[in-house]
Structures are given as structure tokens and as C-alpha cells.
């Protein structure tokens, strides 16, 4: 729920920045798609009722990264499809939001715009950038995935990426360190971060970062 609160703060900042009411409708649609399909797919698997915090996280991420309503809806469905059915035992293989985003983008031939996490430039919106960085506290300290984040950031900056790019920071803070699909051991985390950075150099449509993350999820999957 801490990540839900942090993501909600980022979304609110983006909502007030744009001032477009349709973004609220898009968020509600995204949450309906992820929460509704998560419940449905879990019931099909015979699972009991649960609080949909993971689906809420995915729903807010999707609402922040894509725009057209049909892309939001399809992405939410695909994300929960991956969470519920692309799994071994108790663990799903892929980061659900990343899977939904990439698969939805490919199916629809649409880019992932990262609209809600691209405008927080330090020179113009320092407070908004600070809000964007809050998830780092959760992912690095509580989830203990800082080795992944450090390894990835170190390498990607060497490749020429900007450390202050808000979309990149959001990826590192929220998507990259998802605990269910990333390694726990420090040395393996370092390897994971390096591989994601290397794979992100491949100009994969529609998004090289998400492709790199999903490929690494699969390479490092351990039951």
C-alpha cells in the first residue's frame, strides 16, 4: 500500500499539472481493468478473495505511462493475464505492468508515451521531481533491491543516459525493482541490473526499457 500511495502522489501531481479531467477517467478505467481482471482471473484459478494492492499498483503505473483509453484497457487486461497465468507455482515470471505495457504496445502498434513521468524536469518542476523520487525509498529500503538499481544506473549513465531524466528515474524506482520478479541475493541483483542495462540498448519497438526488463525477468526467473 505504500507504493500505491507513492504512485497516487505522482499521478495527482501529473493530473494537476495537465488539468485534464479525462485523465481521472483514464485512471479509473485502468484500475477497473486491472482490479476487475485480477479478481476474475484469480477466481478462475480457484484463489480466494484478496486485497488487490498489486493490481492497484499496476493500474496506476499503466495510467501514468499510456494515454488512449483502448490502450489503457488492453494493457490492464494483459498485465493481469501475465500475473495470473504466466507463472510457475506461486510466482509469476514477468513484471505484470511491464508485460501489459509492452504487449499492448505491440498489439496496437502504439508507443508507450510515459506521459505522466516525463515532465518533472529539475529546472522547471523540482517539487514534482522530488515526489517522483519517493518510490525509491520504498523499493530501495523496504524491498532491498538497491543493488539492481545501482548496477543499472551506473551502466546506463555510462551509455549516455541522463541521471535526471524523470522517465528513467521512474523506471528505476518503480518498475525495475519489482520484488516478485527480481532476484533477492545482492550478487545476482548486480548481474540483473547489468543485463537490463545492456539489453536496453537494443532499439526494440515499442519500448527498449520494458523489453530489457521482461527479458531479464525470464532469464533470472527462479522458482
Amino acid at each position, binding site marked *: 500500500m505504500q507504493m500505491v500511495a507513492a504512485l497516487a502522489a505522482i499521478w495527482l501531481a501529473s493530473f494537476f499539472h495537465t488539468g485534464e479531467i479525462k485523465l481521472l477517467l483514464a485512471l479509473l478505467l485502468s484500475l477497473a481493468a486491472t482490479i476487475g481482471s485480477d479478481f476474475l482471473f484469480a477466481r478462475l484459478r480457484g484463489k480466494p478473495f484478496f486485497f488487490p494492492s498489486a493490481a492497484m499498483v499496476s493500474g496506476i503505473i499503466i495510467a501514468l505511462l499510456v494515454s488512449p483509453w483502448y490502450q489503457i484497457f488492453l494493457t490492464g487486461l494483459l498485465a493481469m493475464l501475465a500475473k495470473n497465468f504466466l507463472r510457475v507455482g506461486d510466482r509469476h515470471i514477468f513484471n505484470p505492468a511491464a508485460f501489459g505495457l509492452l504487449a499492448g504496445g505491440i498489439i496496437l502498434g502504439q508507443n508507450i508515451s510515459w506521459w505522466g513521468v516525463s515532465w518533472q524536469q529539475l529546472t*522547471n518542476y523540482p517539487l514534482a521531481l522530488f515526489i517522483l523520487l519517493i518510490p525509491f525509498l520504498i523499493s530501495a529500503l523496504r524491498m532491498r533491491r538497491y543493488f539492481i538499481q545501482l548496477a543499472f544506473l551506473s551502466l546506463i549513465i555510462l551509455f*549516455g543516459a541522463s541521471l535526471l531524466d524523470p522517465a528513467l528515474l521512474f523506471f528505476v524506482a518503480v518498475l525495475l525493482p519489482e520484488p516478485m520478479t527480481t532476484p533477492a541475493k545482492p550478487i545476482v541483483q548486480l548481474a540483473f541490473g547489468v543485463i537490463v542495462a545492456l539489453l536496453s540498448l537494443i*532499439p526494440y519497438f515499442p*519500448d527498449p526499457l520494458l523489453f530489457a526488463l521482461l527479458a531479464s525477468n525470464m532469464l533470472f526467473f527462479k522458482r
Partner: protein
Amino acid sequence: MNTKVILGGVAVLAVIGVGAVFLGRSSQPTSQPTQSESSTPAVVLTASGFAPQSVTVAVGTKVTWTNNSGATATVNSVNHPTHLAYSPLNLGSFGGGETLSLVFDRPGTYKYHNHLNASQTGVVVVDQ
């Protein structure tokens, strides 16, 4: 069961990969009005996107972008959102009426986009 699921995951990714090849090709800009070699190549960003979407220039030519879109925009190299293909083309943000420019000193094809609205794309083709 485990092997089947993993193979299933591989198959899904393979389908996605094949789909990406075809959809990536179909997503390339179709024929657009281009600006051929000019002494002062200029690109204007409007609410509809960059115009012209493609410019062809000689090595050593400065290309200038002007923002008439009514909103803050950026000029960034592909690929969104990492912008690693050609880092000198990461020119940063510019507001209404402001300009950005870059001298292209090597031949090649340089794709770029507005990071704040990634559907707005363009390309600079630099000839020898």
C-alpha cells in the same frame, strides 16, 4: 507443468518479438513532405508535430527547431525514453517561440522525438 509454463512464456515472447518486427516496420513514418538540402534548414513544432518531419542536409549544417506548439516540448534522440541512439541530439526542453539547434557533423540518419509527446517524431538525414 513447470516446463510447459516456461515454454509457454518463451512462445509468448517469441510471438511478441515477431509482431514487433512487423509492427515496428509499419510504424515507421510513411512518406511525408521533406525539406531537401537547404542553407538554413528549419523544423517547426506545432500541435500536430514536427514539420517537415524529415529534412536532408549536408555534413556540417546547423538544423534549427522552433517551438510553435503552444506547450513546452523537447528534442530528444530515439529510443524513447532512454534517448541513447545519438546523445548530442538530446537538446533539452524549449518553450513557446524558443529555438534549439544542432550542427550535424557526421553523415547518417538521426531520428528524434518530443519526449513530452512521444508520438511527435522526426528525422534528420545527413549526406556526405
